[in-house]
């Protein structure tokens, strides 16, 4: 009894692997032979039955739920298709099927898009070099990426230690003067997620011909810090097709937002909530069924919060409902601002007149998106989410004030007539998207190209798991 600690400390730190795992092994099922519990729970991410009020694994078509988004993203891929993320096992399937990645004829995305979707990424980066990897196109490299997010992305195959496999994260910290080895084990339980669940952009200048993946954290992690970063390098993701504003797109800054919340400050990690321990047969292991913790309150929240399940759910949902209320205020104001800006251009507004207005729109929408694109609808850091949203509302309304003055000056009757954008279809029609064409082209890609990708992949690796 008493001697057991001393004794156990001497035990070696090596893992007993039934079958050693090859260095670049991308196939989760091969890793799974050694770790059946983790693999089994990982495979549960294919379950799409759980739906909470604002999240879950059942698909939510965001453009249907918030049709203003179509206006906000006019001229950008997101206006075609944007859904709530599903389980990690779907990463390949969902990326392939999204209208954002285009069809057989028209497909413009770079290979960089694969970075957060597949365990094949480290393997290909190793063979082509990082810049080489970033230089291909999404379509031409599709055959190389068939294994969805998995073990290889987060674990060292020899020791099973957590590790970082994506250079963008390492580089971002290096620019801040930090090494990955400075971080504690507990921080690693969030940093493995921060490889993907973060804001990013593609730098086209860094390496000729490459779309280099960069996390814009040089000034810090807040919405304002990144805004300044982008302004300083005069970056924009696209030019808005209605307002002509130079826009920014925020993508899932979960890690950045989470860091400002009380849970992060108390040392709680992503894994604590999204991968809680599970006990089975006297063994405590990490539940790899990564999903909404609301599907699993008992293991995730209740270990720390001894509260009734329904109370904990109510607390989350109440915060989310309130955030959604203010989010919609910003959203609606922004949609109108874009449409009014178009009216101003149409009625002879000049570059000089529009410039300050477009800057307000750029900043307002960036801040709104920083909050809206963060999964969890505010729960990860309510105070910060609301603060940023408040500044977004102010800027959107200020833009609208300036637009009102400008339109009247140009002799336009204010308020102008707004189109009916009450559904996704109507909004997409309004911004001039030809959805039938896009869908038909996608169908061709699915039928003609994907089978070839899978065939090539099977030849390469010998087997191909169906997800």
């Amino acid at each position, binding site marked *: *009894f*008493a*001697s*057991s*600690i*001393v004794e*156990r*400390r001497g*035990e*070696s*730190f*090596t*893992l*007993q692997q039934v079958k050693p795992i090859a260095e670049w092994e991308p196939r989760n099922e091969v890793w799974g032979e*050694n*770790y059946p519990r983790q693999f089994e729970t990982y495979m549960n991410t294919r379950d799409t039955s759980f739906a909470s009020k604002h999240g879950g694994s059942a698909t939510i078509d965001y453009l249907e739920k918030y049709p203003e988004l179509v206006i906000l993203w006019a001229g950008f891929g997101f206006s075609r298709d944007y859904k709530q993320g599903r389980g990690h096992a779907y990463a390949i399937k969902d990326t392939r099927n999204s209208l954002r990645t285009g069809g057989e004829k028209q497909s413009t995305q770079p290979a960089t898009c694969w970075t957060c979707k597949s365990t094949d990424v480290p393997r290909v980066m190793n063979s082509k070099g990082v810049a080489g990897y970033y230089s291909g196109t999404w379509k031409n490299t599709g055959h190389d990426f068939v294994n969805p997010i998995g073990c290889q992305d987060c674990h060292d195959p020899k*020791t*099973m*230690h957590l590790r970082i496999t994506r250079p963008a994260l390492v580089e971002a910290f290096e620019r801040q003067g930090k090494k990955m080895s400075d971080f*504690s*084990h*507990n921080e690693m339980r969030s940093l493995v997620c921060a490889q993907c669940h973060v804001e990013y952009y593609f730098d086209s200048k860094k390496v000729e011909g490459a779309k280099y993946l960069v996390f814009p954290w040089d000034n810090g992690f807040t919405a304002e810090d990144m805004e300044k970063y982008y302004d300083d390098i005069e970056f924009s993701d696209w030019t808005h097709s209605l307002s002509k504003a130079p826009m920014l797109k925020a993508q899932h800054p979960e890690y950045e937002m989470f860091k400002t919340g009380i849970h992060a400050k*108390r*040392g709680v990690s992503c894994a*604590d909530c999204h991968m809680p321990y599970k*006990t089975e047969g*006297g*063994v*405590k*292991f990490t539940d790899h069924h990564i999903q909404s913790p609301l599907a699993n309150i008992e293991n995730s929240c209740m*270990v*720390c919060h*001894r509260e009734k399940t329904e109370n904990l759910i109510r607390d989350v949902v109440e915060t989310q409902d309130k955030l959604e209320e203010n989010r919609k205020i910003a959203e609606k104001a922004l949609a109108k601002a874009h449409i009014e800006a178009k009216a101003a251009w149409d009625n002879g507004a000049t570059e000089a007149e529009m410039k300050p207005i477009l800057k307000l729109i750029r900043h307002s929408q960036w801040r709104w998106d920083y909050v809206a694109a963060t999964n969890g609808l505010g729960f990860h850091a309510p105070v910060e989410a609301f603060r940023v949203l408040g500044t977004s509302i102010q800027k959107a309304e200020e833009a609208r004030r300036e637009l009102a003055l400008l339109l009247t000056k140009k002799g336009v009757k204010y308020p102008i007539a707004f189109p009916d954008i009450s559904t996704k279809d109507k909004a997409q029609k309004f911004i001039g998207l030809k959805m039938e064409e896009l869908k038909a082209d996608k169908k061709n890609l699915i039928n003609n190209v994907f089978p070839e990708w899978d065939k090539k992949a099977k030849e390469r690796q010998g087997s191909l798991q169906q997800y």
Partner: protein
Amino acid sequence: MEDSQSGRTNFLKKLVFKIIPPDRWRVPVLITFGIFFGLGFYIVYISNAASYLSDNPKTCVNCHVMTPQYATWERGSHGKVATCNDCHVPQDNLIRKYWFKANDGLRHATYFTMRWEPQVIRIKQAGKDAVQENCIRCHSNLIHPVALRAINNRNVQDQTEKYCWDCHRETPHGRVHSLSSTPHAIVPQLKPVVPEWLEKITN
């Protein structure tokens, strides 16, 4: 997350140099120390400190400031399976165990007598380390499945970041900690330490 121990050895070294008094002070200092130790032994006697050496949790409630912990422990699942010392004292070898106890016991007694205890008592670093070791000692089957040793063994040894009770916040004393946190709890009555004859004279 938690206060670090660095600088502690340095501090001890400095303390030793500071404590050794200048020559002409040595005699008065010695006398003072004598009084201190004398009284110290008296305290040890009167406060039933000998019982401190036992593993019976009732000895802890000799001091009413330990009542909240006793009450919460007794009514929790660990009340049936683990004594205070199962958690709060190193169990790996006897010397460490009693050294630790003596150390803690004397400090507690002094604090108690001097009324230095804060409203909210908090466990010290050495105490945390001991408790953590003990959680692991009992629950090793849950956290050391053979296949997982690589990750969890490292985790176990490097426990400065996360303690079991960071997650299990209610184990075993509950969430609320304070001298007043269990105001009317029924706990074992204290044995009188005043001899009967003295009791008679004073009453």
